[in-house]
């Protein structure tokens, strides 16, 4: 069961002769369309129609995800650039999920930001992030991957910092700093990785195939894990995520938490060798992932705002994905990456829908917010893996990779934690309705705008049912396998446990103070103090160095030391 064998769901084999051209066009257009529209926004006429057009922009990507044959790679720019696009099973899963989320969130965003004067700027960042996210799932060569990764990472800043509050500025600055750091880690890894093959810009697949034999295997793997888990928000590199994801406007949060973090997932999937056992590295990643899965739940439970609770849930869920990938590469299990991508795509849709529901509830009266909370609870239970929901299929799939050993039990138990956190989230959503909706007309009072409700519900339905459609193809196991009594019981007990604990906590829970978002960052305040001291020291040193006698002496010193070195070292 390899990723390439997986057939595309939309069978266009009737168009066989035209297929290569069609596929190429689809993949290129998927990336080029949002990019072109982002630049087109410079033209006022384009700027005016963009809000109406936005929903359809992800369409080529969706069709590409459904119809392009797996494993087909297209060389868009010939030698020596070798800009290549390709679609494999993990890429297709994430691309399709991202396209769906982008479409619904676009419609939602246009309604959400209807009165925001800065909406045009948001649309530009939105399109750029979209282009980057599609590109990162599609490109197949190392240099283009770096470009796409940088595009999605840096553009996402515009979404996070859109509201420009004090917290948003702080979160945005931290996000940018860590993004720049991540880029530096990755470029070092890529340069080392790319030195294996003869090409200067090799295909990722060729470069990774040579990785196990590379003399720099350890530094490459270390840098890749650091760089991509930074984006996924694995402990202790998660500090930016709750901050950045909670300050963005609601659709922005959905895109950030749903899609942008998946750039880290696809990075791991692309740059770790599949099918080659790497026991040490796998155990490391698996352990870090498991710890993060619990840590995210623990801190998330103390949060008082649903968006922050969701952001911590993303931290926790990315921990689960990392644990699955880690377990897979520990044993070199084939098919790991497709299943990890399946789980990630499931999370993508669910988390997107859950964020959108927060916005719906916030625009609703307390009574109507209860309805939103009910949908939210349903989504949350699916994320936790309640049997008969789409999320249960994803949970079932990852069990195929992580056997019932120590890691397997821990992973199963983390679903209980997830349930707990999701219960907390649903509770917070239920409380976030507001009474005074004075801005709306009288008949609209307390009723969230249709532009918010419809996309959110559509995405919720998709998120709940899409996994069923893909399960059999992804795992090679019939859907019915997940409906046997044993599987149902096995799937239910963690959720039941979580619900039980949630009920217990709701009945007689301890009052826990809210852990500030970014948790350990606050403990690391001395870092910024050290940084400031270094900076001040350097500026003072610079003032000394730039005084004339010092600089003149330095000039003489340079001349003398050069002469001395040359004389003694080179002249016999």
């Amino acid at each position: 069961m390899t990723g390439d064998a997986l057939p595309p769901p939309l069978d266009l084999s009737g168009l066989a002769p035209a297929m290569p051209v069609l596929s190429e066009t689809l993949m290129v257009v998927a990336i080029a369309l949002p990019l072109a529209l982002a630049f087109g926004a410079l033209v006022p006429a384009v700027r005016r129609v963009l809000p109406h057009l936005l929903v359809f922009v992800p369409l080529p990507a969706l069709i590409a995800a459904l119809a392009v044959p797996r494993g087909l790679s297209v060389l868009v720019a010939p030698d020596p650039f070798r800009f290549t696009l390709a679609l494999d099973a993990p890429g297709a899963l994430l691309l399709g999920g991202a396209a769906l989320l982008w479409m619904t969130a676009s419609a939602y965003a246009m309604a959400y930001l209807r009165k925001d004067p800065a909406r045009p700027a948001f649309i530009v960042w939105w399109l750029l992030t979209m282009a980057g996210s599609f590109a990162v799932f599609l490109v197949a060569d190392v240099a283009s991957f770096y470009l796409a990764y940088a595009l999605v990472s840096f553009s996402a800043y515009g979404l996070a910092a859109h509201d420009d509050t004090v917290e948003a500025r702080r979160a945005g600055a931290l996000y940018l700093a860590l993004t720049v750091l991540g880029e530096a880690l990755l470029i070092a890894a890529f340069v080392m990785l790319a030195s294996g093959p003869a090409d200067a810009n090799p295909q990722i697949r060729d470069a990774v195939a040579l990785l196990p034999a590379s003399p720099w295997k350890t530094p490459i793997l270390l840098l890749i894990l650091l760089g991509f888990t930074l984006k996924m928000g694995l402990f202790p590199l998660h500090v930016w995520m709750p901050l950045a994801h909670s300050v963005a406007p609601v659709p922005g949060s959905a895109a950030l938490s749903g899609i942008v973090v998946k750039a880290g997932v696809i990075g791991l999937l692309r740059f770790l060798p599949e099918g080659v056992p790497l026991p040490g590295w796998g155990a490391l990643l698996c352990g870090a992932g498991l710890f993060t899965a619990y840590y995210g739940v623990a801190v998330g439970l103390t949060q008082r705002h649903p968006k922050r609770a969701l952001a911590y849930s993303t931290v926790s869920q990315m921990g689960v994905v990392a644990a699955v990938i880690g377990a897979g590469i520990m044993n070199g299990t084939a098919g790991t990456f497709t299943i990890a991508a399946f789980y990630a795509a499931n999370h993508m849709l669910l988390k997107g829908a859950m964020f959108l529901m927060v916005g719906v509830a916030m625009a609703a009266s307390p009574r109507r917010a209860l309805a939103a909370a009910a949908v939210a609870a349903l989504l949350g239970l699916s994320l936790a893996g309640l049997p008969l929901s789409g999320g249960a299929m994803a949970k079932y799939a990852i069990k195929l990779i992580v056997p019932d050993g120590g890691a397997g039990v821990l992973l199963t138990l983390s679903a209980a934690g997830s349930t707990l956190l999701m219960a907390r989230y649903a509770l917070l959503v239920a409380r976030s309705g507001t009474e005074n909706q004075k801005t709306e007309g009288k008949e609209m009072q307390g009723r969230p705008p249709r532009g918010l409700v419809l996309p959110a519900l559509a995405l919720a339905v998709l998120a709940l049912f899409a996994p069923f459609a893909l399960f059999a193809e992804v795992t090679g196991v019939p859907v019915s396998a997940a409906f046997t009594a044993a599987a149902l019981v096995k799937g239910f007990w963690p959720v039941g446990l979580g619900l039980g604990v949630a009920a217990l906590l709701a009945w007689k829970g301890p009052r826990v103070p809210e852990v500030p978002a970014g948790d350990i960052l606050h403990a690391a305040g001395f870092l910024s103090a050290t940084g400031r001291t270094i900076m001040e020291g350097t500026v003072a040193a610079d003032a000394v160095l730039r005084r004339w006698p010092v600089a003149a002496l330095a000039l003489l010193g340079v001349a003398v030391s050069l002469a001395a070195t040359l004389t003694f070292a080179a002249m016999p």
Partner: protein
Amino acid sequence: MTGALLFGLAGAALVGCGVYGLLTASGALGRILGFNVLGGGVFLIFGAVARRGAAAGFSADPVPQALVITGIVVAFCATALAVALLVRLSTMEARAAPADAGEKET
């Protein structure tokens, strides 16, 4: 002691003086003078080098002389430019000082 050696040593001494002046002079004028002394020393050494060509059998090596003359012209231009800047700066400071001594532009 040959003439060339004497000139060479004198040049070296001038170079030393010039460098010392450039390092220690507190004002721009002192540095300009230091530069000129240093430059003079370098030209003197160049002259001594030309003389050594004569020692090798030529009546005299004309190339360094041409180069020294060019160098002197360049050094002269540099001095003129530096002095012009200095004069301009000091007139401005003299004009600004009585008006508002506190608000000195940097």
